[in-house]
């Protein structure tokens, strides 16, 4: 398993941000932390680093998500 630390930046548009937040909350791969304005700390758990990249791309495509920054990645099982 690969654990990644992410920061998801939501849109400030109230019309789309709640749906994005709901989508994040429902994704079993994600654990959400305490929200800081538009930023939400997220821990992602995926099968592999590649799946982690795919997950980030998926999150960036969600309506209401402006950006996904990666803070840390653990790939001990792959190194």
């Amino acid at each position, binding site marked *: *398993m690969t*654990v*990644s*630390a*992410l*920061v998801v*930046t939501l849109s*400030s548009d109230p019309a789309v941000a709640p749906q994005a937040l709901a989508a994040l909350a429902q994704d079993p791969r994600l*654990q959400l*932390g*305490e*929200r*800081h*304005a*538009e*930023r*939400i*700390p*997220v*821990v992602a*758990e995926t099968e592999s*680093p*590649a799946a*982690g*990249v795919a997950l*980030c*791309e998926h999150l960036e495509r969600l309506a209401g998500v*402006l*950006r996904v*920054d*990666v*803070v*840390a*990645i*653990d*790939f*001990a099982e*792959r*190194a």
Partner: protein
Amino acid sequence: MERRDFLKATAMAAATAAAAQLARGRDGQAQPAAAPPLGEDGVRWDKAPCRFCGTGCHVQVGVKAGKVVSIAGDQRAEVNQGLLCVKGYHVGLALYGKDRLTQPLLRQNGKLSPISWERALDVIADRALADPAGFAIYGSGQWTIPEGYAAQKLIKGGLRNNQIDPNARLCMASAVTGFLSTYGVDEPAGCYDDLDHCDVLLMWGNNPAEMHPVLFSRVVDRKLRGDKILLVDLTTRRTRTSGFCDRTIFFSPQGDLAIANGIAHLLLEAGTWDREFVAAFCNFRQRTDPPTLDGKAMTLDEYRASLASYTPERVQELSGVAPEDLRFLAELFGRRELRITSLWCMGMNQHTRGTAINDLVHGVHLLSGHFGKPGDAPTSLTGQPSACGTVREVGTLAHALPGGLVVAKPEHRKEAEAIWNLPAGSINAKPGYHTVEMWKRFSTPKDQGGDISTIWVQVTNPARSLPNVPALFEPSRRLDGKFLIVSDVYPTATALAADLVLPSAMWVEKNGMVGNSERRTQQWFKMVPPPGQARDDCWQTLAVARRLFERGAPGLKDKDGKFLFQFRDAKGAEVPAWQWERYYDVNVDEQLFEEYRRFSRFKHKDLAPYGEYVKARGLRWPVVQQPDGSWRETRFRFSRSDDPYAKKAEVQFYHSVTKDDRALIWFHPWEAPPEQPDAEYPLWLCTGRVLEHWHTGTMTMRIPQLRRAMPQAYCELHRDDARALGVAQGEVVVLETRRGRLELPVWIDGRGQPARGSVFVPFFDESLAINLLTLEAHDPLSKQPDYKKCAARIRKRVAP
């Protein structure tokens, strides 16, 4: 607690800290020391700058059992404040490609076969002794500072032929000549803090959203927080950056020269230029024939007259920019209350008029007084982690000496001879060959002027990064008497074509220091062992130097008859660091750096002692010691408010070309590029990078995640051009120039969108090498080739 739970808890702590910091706003201040970002028993964490681009993000590297197992953004680093881009957080995997080179290989009977290091060193020494004048080293901005310094000293102080040049010649040489001709000394006055303070960010042919994403995120963050910042994209092609900008202004290739002149013309016409700033701090200059960095003086009236023809209408003819867009730009520069940062990278540098466009952009800032305050400065970016630190500062260019000195000046040679303890007159006054010339001569028979017989390549891949590879690289592989040595970590295209291959250590497999785009010098320690017999590039250079010394090469002795490279332990005893088993008995990096640091004072590029960099996440020079013994870095050069050497006035250009503390505002006319589309080759070809890959892809294409995300090169084509050519999305077409051809899939409305009549191809893919097609025409002063424009055509592929 299970490992997984522990990892998740520490990951959440790291993400929460970063989210809080982003929400608060990045203010250029690093965070206090944080707990390890992904904590786990037995993982040892240490700092290092990222291995890839010139941004200089710091990462935290987690090591367990001799392997890099985790990467995290370093929250204590001012540059990135905990964030990384997609390349950065995979940087650790760059060490673990399956085909690492692990032993020296010599081409015998046409095949690369394993040999010992001893034999390899003998082979190199044989080549250098047989033709010392024709022995060259070709390096890069990926050399660490000590590696580049050792190579520089071997060539300029030892072999004394000055035949050393880096691939950075291909990426930032025009920025160097632009800074030198404008301010008399290289490298930006400002720094990344400008991004936090500017009201307007004007990007000249620059795509930081993909090339320097962590930097670009600073301004995007500001917009998200509601800061009033205007992002303006001046570009020939719609990019990811364009998508974030408030205004995107498209121009035709080479049109940037006309745009800059048009802005200056309108500033003068409207009277919105800054008379006081210009009167106090600037002189005017025009070029000479042949061009020089000093040029010829001109008056304000002559300058005004030279610009008179650059009316908005004429600029539109030359650049395609609408008059209202040009007026918009001029009006911005005419507003004194705004803080304007100009940003550029390869778009302005890889240009046959690279020095001119760099001069002109500096000139627009100086003419309008947009200089010398935080957020108000022209700032160039670099593409490699130490293009500034190793190439520009250590001076690993054919004409340069460390610290901004040059071989052509007797007083500079004397200073270098004193530091290197060489007999007077040792250093050769004649510059070596710049990159294009070096490779041209290597690819030319000796009896036809091809006087470079051996090139030792370190940390770069010229078989894919040189322009016009069929002319500059490939002939050498067929000529008798030409010998190519390659030190690298993977079997790159260059390594596979070499006569001798040396396996190298990379990144945290060795100690290192680099210098990023904002004058920040950074340091790290070796954390993991290199694989097999791979060894540090710096050791390789020292070992060859020692072999030459032992075999009597005269230049390898100093004036006391001692070996040019001396290393001593704490008790003062000599340590034979040229023996691999003794190399880490001393900190070779520290000793080379402390010697090199003596050069840094000549041009006020002062560096602190090595130990200060161990403690810091980099320091921006000049770093000057304070009365209390501490070391203070400089964010804004030439400004009395921050630069300790600017003492006489609010702004002082203390290395002024004209020796009067003034910068130069140049006039350069628009000129047509050397090759333009015509009936036979009707398209413009532009090349560049993509987010996922770095340079020729030798590292990032070996990281499965990045390879999968962007697996191969492509040809971006405008939808209307595709329709006219009758080609569909994904169809493989034949792209041709006068130098070569390549078959590539077409991408319409993809990552970038080129203008009608132009195509874009990235250069990361070794198997689809666009530099088989590019042009080696180069700027007359910087000698930097133009990878951004040449004539091309596309035709449908005929089925076999």
